[in-house]
């Protein structure tokens, strides 16, 4: 089960209805939130991808369950534009070579659905929205690498962690959108 903010049932509907309904549902959603669309029209996968691209939403992926296609879309958030404030940063490449030499804690603060389709092996999933209530899961003295898609949400997370008393918080920039190292999926 992939956690999302909202689910849209478009089963049994033929093109163009899955997209028409998705467009409507996305309008009602908050920026950065994730929608699951359940459809049976086989052509919907290519159209979801293409539509997301043309509208700026993020197509996360599709899971096939029997005859049902579950598409995951994240509403565009414009968070790439926000100025980053956390000073301690590391580049993707530097994190990658660091991981090859030593065990490194990576906390991924994207939404669960984004994490499910593509993440660094052994990274911990801790969506930004849940960070404050789950602080106790992290070790305050450990070195923590925070990552998201473009470095913005992880910047916010790094600031929050630092003000909560964490000593060694490093923001990974730009993050998963440009990640060339190994990744894995956990969609089942």
């Amino acid at each position, binding site marked *: 089960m992939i956690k999302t903010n909202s689910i849209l049932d478009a089963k049994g509907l*033929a*093109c*163009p*209805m899955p997209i*028409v309904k998705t*467009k409507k549902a996305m309008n009602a959603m908050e920026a950065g939130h994730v929608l699951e669309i359940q459809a049976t029209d086989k052509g919907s996968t290519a*159209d979801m991808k*293409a539509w997301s691209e043309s509208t700026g939403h993020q197509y996360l992926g599709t899971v096939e369950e029997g005859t049902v296609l579950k598409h995951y879309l994240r509403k565009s958030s414009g968070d790439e534009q926000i100025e980053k404030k956390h000073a301690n940063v590391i580049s993707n490449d530097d994190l990658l070579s660091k991981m090859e030499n030593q065990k490194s804690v990576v906390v991924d603060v994207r939404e669960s659905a984004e994490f499910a389709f593509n993440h660094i092996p052994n990274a911990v999933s801790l969506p930004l929205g849940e960070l404050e209530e789950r602080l106790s899961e992290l070790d305050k003295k450990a070195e923590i690498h925070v990552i998201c898609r473009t470095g913005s949400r992880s910047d916010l997370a790094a600031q929050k962690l630092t003000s909560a008393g964490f000593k060694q918080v490093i923001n990974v920039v730009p993050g998963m959108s440009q990640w060339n190292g190994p990744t894995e999926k956990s969609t089942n």
Partner: protein
Amino acid sequence: MSVKEMTAKEIAQKVIKKEDLFILDVRNQSDFNDWKIEGESIEIFNTPYFDLLDGVEEVMERIPVEKEVVVVCAKEGSSILVADMLSEAGRSVSYLKGGMKAWSEHLEPIKLGDLHDGAEMYQFVRLGKGCLSYMVISNGEAAVIDSTRMTDVYLEFAASKEAKITHVLDTHLHADHISGGRQIAEQTNATYWLPPKDATEVTFAYQALEGGNVVTIGNTAIDIHALYSPGHTIGSTSFVVDEKYLLSGDILFIDSIGRPDLAGLAEDWVGDLRETLYNRYRQLSDELIVLPSHFMIIEELNENGSVGKQLGTLFAENHGLNIKDEKEFRAMVTGNLPPQPNAYQEIRETNMGKMTPDSEKQREMEIGPNRCAVR
């Protein structure tokens, strides 16, 4: 303005007669780039339907007022939506009934000519996919060659000519489309002929078609001579019908030649391909009219929409028949190959009887252009 429906047949007629038509294709860009309706008189423009949901103003200026306009999508739903919007904006437009699915499945029967004793030769042109199939009709009997899975078309056509289908033949095991041969043979009790070397893995009974076999249609004996011509597949067999037509399967096309790699054996078969094209075919009469199983580009169509040319002309004009150097020939047909046809392995297994996908799945497997040739 009202929205009218346009059938795949009407579009096929316009392509063949070169009548002006403007197509607004509202599928997503990647589907459009992969495969679309083509024709000399066709003007086509692509905008995905999902970019038009808020209004069609942007696309209005791209749509000519003086031409007939049809909106096209994958199945028809989105094209109706867009056609309705254009109609509300004051334009008179049609949509393609059944969408690209219907276009892919439409067969246009075209008479190629008369044979001896009142017999007739027909070609079925599948414009949307580039497949060509054939029917020989003689004195109340008919033979179907390289049929597509739209078997009703052949059954109805034969019935309209008051002919009984007695023989069904495939030139080779197809990798780009699903053959209707077995189904037609079962429904009509006809004999299904397959080249045995292509049929080693088939799961059903067939009659082995080998070089030198003669199949006779009708009392007046329209003979089909089988001519073993390996190269595209190891079993590929050509037919000479009534000493007039050379059905070349996927060995020789009008503007290209067959590719030897679809069974994964390009290196092994390239020698056979050259032997067939440069020796065996050379020994045939230049007067024979070559009728292939495919056409690749719309320019290969003759004035009446049929596809076929004299063998002598092809020896003069087809690049693939004019490569003197064997090494160069080898390099051309084994390197630089176009992408393989969609689902070609599954299609081969279906044609062997190893898989029996439902019709929806069969349709999906055949989507897109065929790619059986090298140019």
